[in-house]
């Protein structure tokens, strides 16, 4: 199936070395819309909602920022560390400028970890995009469910 111009352009922006050195698609061999559809199905199956997940990740980012760069325990369950750098990064869909922040999140009970950015929150909320499998900041639905809920 041919992609609409919006997705065509976003997918081009997601290649290695365009917006980020590592790109957003990882090792996926299917197109952007198929990636999004597959992950939407997975979210449905797991009973996850994109806006809720985005909200939780944003909440943890904001709480984590209080650690001023050092890890901080949030709600007695998560260990959150936020790394901030100066500069900005555009969304591949060309509708948002993200801060350059990286968050590492550890569930202290299970020691499960995940890693996301300010841009990931926007990509989840606005575009239902979790990045391609094999990408550095790919968010697996199953892991999101385990750590956030």
């Amino acid at each position, binding site marked *: 199936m041919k992609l609409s111009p919006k997705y065509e352009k976003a997918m*081009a*922006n997601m290649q*290695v*070395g*365009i*917006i980020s*050195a*590592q*790109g957003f698609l990882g090792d996926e061999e299917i197109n952007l819309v198929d990636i999004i559809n597959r992950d939407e199905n997975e979210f449905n199956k797991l009973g996850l909602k994109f806006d809720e997940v985005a909200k939780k990740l944003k909440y943890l980012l904001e709480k984590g*920022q*209080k*650690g*001023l*760069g*050092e*890890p*901080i*325990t949030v709600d007695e369950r998560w260990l959150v560390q*936020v*790394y*901030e*750098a*100066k*500069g*900005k*990064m*555009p969304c591949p869909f*060309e*509708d*948002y*400028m993200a801060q*350059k922040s*990286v968050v*590492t999140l550890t569930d202290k009970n299970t020691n499960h970890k995940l*890693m996301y*950015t300010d841009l990931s929150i926007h990509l989840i909320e606005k575009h239902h995009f979790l990045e391609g499998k094999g990408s*550095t*900041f790919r968010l697996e639905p199953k892991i999101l469910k385990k750590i956030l809920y």
Partner: protein
Amino acid sequence: MEFIIAPLIISILTGILAAIISITDKIVNNYGEITISINNGKKEIKIDGGENLLTTLSSKEIYLPSACGGRGSCGACKCKVTSDVGEYLPTEIPYLTKEEMKENIRLGCQIKLKKDISIEIPDSLFNVKKYEAVVEKIVDVTHDIKEVLFNLGNEEINFTAGMYMQLCIPPYDKIKNETQRAYSISSKPSDKHHIELLIRLVPGGIATTWVHTYLKEGDKVKLIGPFGEFEATPTNSTMICVAGGSGMAPFKSMLYHMYENNINDREIWYFFGARTKKDLFYLEELAELQEKWPNFHFVPALSEPEGEEWKGESGLITDVLDRYLKTIINSGYKEGYLCGSPGMINACNNVMTANGIKLENIYYDKFA
């Protein structure tokens, strides 16, 4: 939001188009020889046009700061242009303040050289060189911070304590282009043949991942510098220094430099924040320095000591700082010195100004 989105769309489009245009441009257009006049003709460079200002200058060994290697995503390569180079590009606008635009400050990596140009750069940039260094030693000072010592061989470097270097990261794995990142120097200015950096692993970060997983003793690397204006003022006011993690670096350099040069008549308070004991480092060295130097006070603080035996301060570093400024260090003329993330700097600025330290007397690294 519109005002951000519009330039943004153009900015990304221009980014992609730029690549195509620049290739076609090189084939089709020949701008011929152009002159770059620096600081009112103090230095003139004649060179073929067609490339951007940042790259062109570096080919002549004049280095503007850059923390992204010219991708247009760090905003570090600011440079005053005093001749006409056309309107601001959408790729520049997000990084410049209104005041900077009034001053004709531009992003060096975005300015394409098509005709003669006049620029103004700080004289200190003439001291910046590219060094071919060898990694002499790598030490894990914590579970996520490496102390890396580079040997500059016969080359000498002159810098003031507080300045930073740019480390060139070669292509590796899926990363196809060389990139650069800025790190504060932690070694003493008196050691002119070495540079030491403290590099904390940022998960997913290109540069720090390379340092933490690929870099080995004996490797050859390129370093560009020194850059920056962060330094101790030549006054007698009390220095209130705050850092966490690899923010230790410029203070290590400053403290040992001051001690070595008998600049020991001013009071120095150094607040260092970490979460647990395993995130602390240089405790013994700094305690030893404190023994020998009565005006120096080191205050490490743990935000979540987690049942460890810990006799020092506890709490977030900003809370500890606030407590001290209200009780122990509540008189005299004070200056703030900070090294950390934008959020950390913001939070410390708030605590310091609320305790009577003027914003213009608070200094920090602007690249971090």
